[in-house]
């Protein structure tokens, strides 16, 4: 499961559209399972399932009608269509709505139908473009769970502009910004990369800055207010525990301590400044 991360307008949807043959690229090639998409579009496309940002639903059809139509489009053998449709409905949890017109489904269920459409032909690769966009928190959780399930059987490329979502679901991460790839590694590497490296500490009776700077592992100190101090530390040591112990013993009257996580925007800014390798 690969997460495609990027802020709005970074080129996530464009990338995915190109990947699925909806848009035609100006340069470079797309290979799906070793097949050149441009040279053998039909063969390549049977191996992809695509859910665009707005699910490509026909609102006037019932769930079953719609999925049957998709099954026909995806070159599923005539005899297997019924089973494929039922399997996809079961998998995505819309089987009990099979005879309902899509227009009458809630957003979460529409999205499920959209996902069902993308896996109906058992593709090797499923491309999901912001599948949780516009859903309420409960629905987001359910859809995420569904995507995770799908990822156990086939490769999933999943895009989002929400970092936590990608962190929660993906194994691999690709980050793009302005049409360029700025980060490409496993999720673990990414987590390490963005691990918090500063502490925000508020104390009523702060010691001199020097005392704090002397603590092992602290790299730099910033005095924000009278009692508010930002401490940059080195990832290897357990700095926060040390500070709490020292604060108690020295009566610094600690009121608040928090790890500062980098925001996605900051990471983007950081990453785009650091690496500028072209999108492959």
């Amino acid at each position: 499961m690969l997460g495609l991360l990027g802020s709005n307008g970074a080129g996530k949807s464009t990338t995915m559209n190109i990947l699925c043959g909806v848009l035609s690229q100006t340069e470079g090639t797309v290979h799906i399972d070793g097949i050149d998409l441009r040279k053998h579009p039909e063969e390549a496309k049977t191996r992809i399932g695509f859910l665009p940002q707005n699910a490509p639903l026909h609102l006037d059809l019932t769930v079953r009608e719609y999925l049957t139509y998709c099954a026909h489009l995806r070159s599923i053998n005539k005899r297997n269509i019924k089973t494929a449709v039922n399997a996809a409905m079961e998998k995505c949890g819309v089987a009990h709505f099979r005879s309902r017109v899509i227009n009458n489904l809630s957003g979460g269920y529409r999205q499920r139908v959209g996902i069902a459409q993308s896996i109906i032909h058992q593709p090797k690769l499923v491309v999901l473009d912001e599948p949780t966009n516009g859903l309420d928190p409960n629905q987001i959780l359910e859809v995420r769970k569904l995507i995770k399930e799908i990822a156990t059987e086939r490769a999933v490329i999943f895009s989002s502009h929400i970092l936590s979502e990608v962190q929660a679901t993906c194994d691999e991460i690709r980050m793009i910004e302005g049409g360029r790839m700025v980060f490409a590694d496993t999720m673990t590497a990414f987590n390490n990369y963005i691990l918090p490296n500063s502490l925000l500490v508020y104390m009523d009776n702060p010691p001199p800055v020097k005392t704090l700077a002397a603590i092992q592992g602290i790299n730099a100190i910033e005095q924000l207010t009278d009692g508010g101090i930002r401490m940059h530390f080195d990832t290897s040591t357990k700095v926060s525990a040390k500070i709490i112990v020292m604060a108690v013993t020295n009566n610094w009257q600690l009121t608040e301590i928090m790890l500062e996580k980098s925001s996605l925007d900051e990471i983007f800014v950081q990453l785009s400044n650091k690496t500028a390798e072209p999108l492959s």
Partner: protein
Amino acid sequence: MTKILKIARLELSILFYSPVAWLVLAIFMVQAGTGFFGMLSSFQELFMMGEKADNLTRMLFPGINGLFDKVLQTLYLYIPLLTMGLISRELSSGSIKLLLSSPVKITEIILGKYLTMLYYALMLIAILGIYSLIGVVIKDSLLYKSMMDRSRARYYNRANDPGAAFNDTISAVLGNYNFRRTGPSLKKLDMVNLDRVFSIYKERFANAANMAFVFTGNIDVKAAKPLFEKYLGSLPSTSTTEKPRDLVIDPPVGKISKTIIKGKEAKATVVMVYSGKYDFNNQNNIVFDALQENLNIRLIETLRERDGSVYSPRVDFNLVKEPAQRFSLTIQFGCDPANAEKLIASAQEEVRRLSAEGPQEENIAKWKAEWRRQRELDLRENGWWLNYIIRQLQSVADVKECNEDAKIVDAVDTSAVKKAAKQYLLNGNLIKFTLMPEAH
């Protein structure tokens, strides 16, 4: 291919989920309907004014200014209304991505959408098909009245037309004044009843059981047979067989003479009818043909060339097998009214001489040569075969009979013709009709 069909089917159902398709159908129906019924009423007016229309169906439907033509002129309004959304709707809803990311060729998408429009156009044509149902027979009392009025006007003057009056008299006398054989009249016209006309029509066309269909020509029987079975076999029929009734309308016996004085033209018309019982068979029929030809030659020689006052004498004959076997032979000529009596006597004299002396040898030879030449030409004609086969079927005779004809013709000699003349023309039955001008 299946993908094209699936795309077309989806598109069609989407089309009908929206009101546009229904609306267009409805508007089209109303528009075609007003056009069609406007056309019908204008045709009705034309009929009432006495115009005739051959092939009304062609004029109503595929002809210039017919229904199809009319529809074509308005179709350009509807078609864009339907086609404009075919692709753009997909683009705006984003469902185009479903098609583009599926293993479907662009050609298939386009053909699918095109097929949808073809279906839809077919539906429009089906609506037009409804109007063709109007083509079933309907009692149109207005049209009927106008037809009757026209007939009335025609019969009103019939009694004043010398030719028509003469023909009506001949028909009435020969038919023994049977109602069916007297000429048309205003009185008869008043007896016609539309309901009865309609019921006769329905009765006659409801049953194909007693119909025989004859096809002649270079026909591949194997290929044609299923077509006959399909189209003729599907005609409505009941199992009843229908037998003709003999109404016994025979010409009167004995000698009858009728003179009709009518018209101003200084010309007389004479019709002499010999008739009687007959033994209907191929041999006799051919001899009768020889008799007619020989009498014809004689009359031309005497009446036209010797007496020189006849335009052209004509000898016709009619042999019937059903309902009773009978013959009739008619001599007909036009002449100066002053000569009529003299020429009738000459003609009768020729008939008597033919019966007494028999025909001349050379005339028989002439007839034989002419018969052979004609037959040779006839055998090449589908029309001749068609008539021949129908005649044989109607008289329940062998269809291969014509093979014997040449042999029979060869055997005909002067004595056979002489005997026939005596037997048929001197049996005492002769009805003479003379049409004389009023001034005479």
